[in-house]
């Protein structure tokens, strides 16, 4: 049974589905955590940052998460390579978008690559200035901030307009990716039928919309606050 996850098309899709589901759950958690940064002076957010610092459980969590991303990413390239081969060398001269087919569903790899690039940028902005600094045994990052002062780091990062733009592009790609991905993972494990397909697509829109808004509102609100010159 172990090898059907690699040698069968449906097994490979199952891996994509389960790893994707895991990442969606993480995103929901991360989004909920970020929204806390909007409340009060940031001490509540920093409390969560302290809890998720360089502890063994946070490290194990990070490692599992990285593995999830890696598996989803590696399988995506593998499946796409096989799919291109299956499509053949000669392509249609005339192509159209079929009725009811989302653009995102045909461009999941492209959207996924944007998401990964955004993730790398995000790790540079936050993870390398927080958990990594703690792991290195230092008490301040290169910005002179304490590694557990996540609220100050958010404030600093989103005071730069170009960061806000980059993050919004990233969130939009994630939104489109999840718009297809969330209902698709139910279809792949077989939890769909004619009654539930439209419902699942609706749920996917709600989940992806919620994740997009939750992330975007933090970036936009902190940028708006930075324009207020400290008056709010």
């Amino acid at each position, binding site marked *: *049974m172990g090898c*059907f996850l690699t*040698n*069968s*098309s*449906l*097994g*490979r*899709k*199952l891996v994509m589905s389960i790893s994707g589901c895991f990442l969606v759950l993480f995103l929901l958690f991360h989004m909920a955590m970020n929204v806390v940064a909007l409340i009060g002076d940031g001490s509540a957010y920093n409390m969560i940052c302290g809890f998720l610092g360089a502890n063994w459980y946070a490290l194990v969590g990070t490692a599992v998460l990285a593995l999830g991303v890696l598996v989803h990413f590696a399988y995506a390239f593998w*499946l796409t390579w*096989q*799919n291109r*081969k*299956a*499509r*053949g*060398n*000669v*392509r*249609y*001269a*005339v*192509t*159209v978008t*079929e*009725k*009811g*087919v*989302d653009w995102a*569903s*045909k461009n*999941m790899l492209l959207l996924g690559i944007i998401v990964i690039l955004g993730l790398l940028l995000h790790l540079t902005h936050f993870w390398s200035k927080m958990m990594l600094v703690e792991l290195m045994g230092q008490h301040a990052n290169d910005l002179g901030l304490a590694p557990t002062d996540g609220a100050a780091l958010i404030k600093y990062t989103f005071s730069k307009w170009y960061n806000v733009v980059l993050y919004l592009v990233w969130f939009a790609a994630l939104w489109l990716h999840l718009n*297809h991905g969330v*209902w*698709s993972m139910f*279809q*792949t*494990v*077989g*939890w*769909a*039928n*004619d009654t539930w*397909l439209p419902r699942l697509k609706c749920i996917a829109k709600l989940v992806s919309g919620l994740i997009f808004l939750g992330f975007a509102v933090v970036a936009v609100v902190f940028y708006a606050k930075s324009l207020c010159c400290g008056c709010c």
Partner: protein
Amino acid sequence: MNFTLKIWRQKDAHSKGEFKEYKVSDISSDTSFLEMLDILNNDLVHKGEEPVAFDHDCREGICGMCSLHIDGHAHGPSQAVTTCQIYMRQFKDGATITVEPWRSAAFPVIKDLVVNRGAYDQILQAGGYVSVRTNSVPDGNAIPIPQADAEESMDAAACVGCGACAATCKNGSAMLFVAARVSSLAKLPQGRVEGARRAKAMVAKMDELGFGNCTNTGACQAECPKGISIAHIARLNREFLAAKFED
């Protein structure tokens, strides 16, 4: 009506193909697409040229023999019909119509617009059947089947195996075809007995023949001449995964 046709011409499986332009004129609006190709071929034969090879048989939408990718759509621009059920009145007078063969690595071109769809037959041979005792005809009501199940089974059984799903899919996946065959039998008590073996065998053959992985775009469902739903793909996934976890 007058049309300019851009048709893929390819001498045989090993030759390189190319598009050639042909003009057809004075075509009645009630001419079917295949009849229009017959008229073109008649002209070509009279001119001493090689006629365009294309697949067709029943010409009433039930055999699954006709194919053709017309102006970017498998079976042309209309929904839920086969190529033989398309009429020239559905095109604009003077239009240029591009006609291509199915494009999929598992469906190699044999000549012009004819592709080898033998891969679908091989998938069926792997498990798309029921093993039954061929004694005398059983009583019609001996095995009661709920109406909803019978309907769902018949919806899936409407698949004519034309190949439009794999030809349309950007991944060259045959999942809608395999799902329709698995689903039509899985919903009936006679087919349930071999359900697990069937799902595993047909998926294994599909993979072996080089069809791609389904990414749930739904393009197959949109272009299927029989309107087969991707909900059947969910059932195939369910049947296959349940069978694998039971192993």
